């Protein structure tokens, strides 16, 4: 298969970027999207050009490192997968594919398709944890947890922190990401204890970092590689508002 790639190239955070076109040829349909970029990059190196910088690591859809906006979709045209799980058989031979970095004020471009997602770390540092010390804990079975609660907590905990939600949201809102963490811990008795504090601290940090306001479009859940539901956003709203009303 052959493709024309329209890729965003940007030297560094300060430089102005632009699209550049590349041709890739004789790509097997079983090749993954990122392998296709590996092939392009190897060709570029041989030509003495700088390869296209893009984030990736585990290539199994779990580390959350890959982050490409492909033809208008975060993580490409398939539902419920990360960029590394896209295969070239999903594209038409001869197609032009546009590849852009995440676009969000809170995720500035570092180089080409690589952005800085440190803001997500900062939000979790503000309160995305349970304050227990190593070793000062009861037996794992001391508190039974209803299976349904554990499952719902796991649904939210599946978040890989890739940033697709904020990158997709027309408002640049990080609500799905924040909600996934708050909701996951809120469903467990261990996380419940400091639920109010957590919701307030994380929302405050999210606002401070310049993420936008959620308008419930649901675009985040549509593009989330782990299909995390906006029901978790509703729970975050509830957690936050109840916490504030108790103040």
């Amino acid at each position, binding site marked *: 298969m052959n493709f024309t790639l329209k890729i965003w190239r940007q*030297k560094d955070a300060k430089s102005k970027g632009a699209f550049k076109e590349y041709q890739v040829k004789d790509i*097997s349909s*079983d*090749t*993954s999207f*990122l*392998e296709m970029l*590996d092939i392009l990059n190897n060709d570029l*190196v*041989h030509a*003495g050009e*700088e*390869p296209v*910088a893009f*984030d990736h*690591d*585990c*290539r*199994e859809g*779990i*580390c959350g*490192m890959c982050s490409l906006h492909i033809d208008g979709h975060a993580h490409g045209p398939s539902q419920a997968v990360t960029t590394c*799980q896209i*295969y070239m*058989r999903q594209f038409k031979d001869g197609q032009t594919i546009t590849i852009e970095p995440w676009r969000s004020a809170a995720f500035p471009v*570092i*180089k080409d398709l*690589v952005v*800085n*997602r*440190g803001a*997500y*770390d900062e939000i*979790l*540092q503000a*309160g*995305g*944890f*349970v304050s*227990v010390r*190593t*070793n000062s*804990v*009861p037996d*794992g*079975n001391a508190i*039974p947890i*209803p*299976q349904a609660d*554990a*499952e719902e*907590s*796991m649904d939210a*905990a*599946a978040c890989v*922190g890739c940033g697709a939600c904020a990158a997709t949201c027309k408002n640049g809102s990080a609500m799905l990401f924040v909600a996934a963490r708050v909701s996951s*811990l809120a*469903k*467990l008795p*261990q996380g419940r204890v400091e639920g109010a504090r957590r919701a307030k601290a994380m929302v405050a940090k999210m606002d401070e970092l310049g993420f936008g306001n959620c308008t419930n479009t649901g675009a985040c859940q549509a593009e989330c590689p782990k299909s995390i539901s906006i029901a978790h956003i509703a729970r975050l709203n509830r957690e936050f508002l109840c916490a504030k009303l108790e103040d």
Partner: protein
Amino acid sequence: MAFKLDSKIPAGELSQKWSNHKAAIKVVSPANKRKLDIIVVGTGLGGASAAASLGELGYNVKVFCIQDSPRRAHSIAAQGGINAAKNYQNDNDSVYRLFYDTIKGGDYRAREANVYRLAEVSNLIIDQCVAQGVPFAREYGGLLANRSFGGAQVSRTFYARGQTGQQLLLGAYAALNKEIHNGSVKSYTRHEMLDIVIEDGEARGIIARNLVTGEIERHGAHAVVIATGGYGNVFFLSTNAMASNGSAAFQCYRKGAGFANPCFTQIHPTCIPIHGTQQSKLTLMSESLRNDGRIWVPKKLEDVEAIRKGTKMPADIAEEDRDYYLERRYPAFGNLVPRDVASRAAKERCDAGYGVNETGLAVFLDFKTAIERLGKEVIEKRYGNLFDMYKEITDVNPYEQPMQIFPAVHYTMGGIWVDYNLMTTIPGLYAIGEANFSDHGANRLGASALMQGLADGYFVLPYTIGDYLAKKIQAPKVSTNTPAFDEAEKAVREKIEKLLSINGTQSVDDIHKRLGHIMWDNVGMARTKESLEKAIVEIAALRKEFWKDVKVVGTADSFNVELEKALRLADFLELGELMARDALNREESCGGHFRVEHQTEEGEADRDDENFVYAAVWEYKGMDEVPELTKEPLSFEFVHLAKRNYKD
């Protein structure tokens, strides 16, 4: 000068060793902890849990990772689960049984005391993770659920769907975030350690490169902890993440730390087969699939031919024409034999010509029986996400046709040599998790890597590091303005300059792929004296070629992925040779190390307990010099060295 290895294994009854040791080692008072700095390199299960626990204790911790967030470390990709001897299933599990299974699974090439400690603290890990809000699978009654795993006859594996590594890492990452929030830990993301700094024979800090700006930074500390994982990517194709590398560990080795059992590599039996020459990465399918999946190849070669040509579909092969070779060879464990055994058995069938895809390098993992027995819904619930992933990658629906699998490099049991305190041969330098060599011997059991990473980070290192730091309470802040730091930084800069100036004709990946082929063909699942000698020569030649002909584009002072890869490959090119040398030295077959010359008549590994009950510890002598071997004898006081038997 050979190493004087002191494993510092405490005396006494096996079950009392760790308690006795904890009682005997020194502690540092809270006021003094505040004055001590610790560097942790790597943020996987080991690094994150260690940094968080050390921060909680009051030390000043700096933690480094190469990814954009500590959460992305490759521990996250572990699917199946984590072992613990809770005996929640009432199936007669115990600390001793977990210890015994692990020692046996490792083919008696690990230290008894270390493994017992691992089994002992395994239960604490589960409690810790539950308290952190890790959503482990639960039964209807609200209690923790378990599943079975390879190499064990009890059900002791705790899991969170097929994402156990992710959930445990998020737990450790949350603990780390808590300490970053409290100000005791400072996180440096997109930073790569390029050298370790040694002064007066002790670890004093690291040289790191800021991967965004290219700046070379100096960081001093009273102790340095290496938690940078394994070096499986020396094979180019492996299930490791693309950026996983052996460079941090290799710098320690280069600066004088012993490197133990480098040849012990785990080849995981259930990976998706290679599809072509342009592949960059192999994908693992969880070992938990072997709980319900049955592994087979056709009995008749004509069926193999027909499947390869596509004239017959695998599902159409009659039951009596299928060779469930694991069940045939190992009746007691069947499809749940340890990984090394399962991998070798697959290779044996493929070598005999029964490989079921065009490359001849694949066997079937079939759920037909399980679906008939349990129903599609149950299988979907258990493995739905894995089945979807398989279909996504291969375009084959595993509910209708069996999966194709083949072994791939997955984990390295070898690593930096450490004593019972997890300290390397360099005082003040520690290694934890996959980066060290300590607990898995020659083969690691499934669901034990997570256990080791967290055991080291949460429950071992935070105590044992105090024993060393107690001697440092009078030491001032480590100055980075010393000749040792100057020299280390200069060497790093020169190496980078050199790589950028070669401007040859081959890309880093071109050479890495060639290294991978040499390794897989000669230092892979079956090793011979000839293949290993050949590998040593070829790798040395390739290394020379690399330093003459590699082409690294871009600049030193910018975000430069090619440069990062080149620096890592430079180390792999030495590490690969070391692995071959170690494999050549070990004239026996054990665990993941299979020497063709040393097998029984039935083709099983033939271990040599007369001559090789030791850890092979290598000392660096220079890039093109032969490293020096020191042996740490392993003494088995409590278990009887027996031939591994998974047949009955």
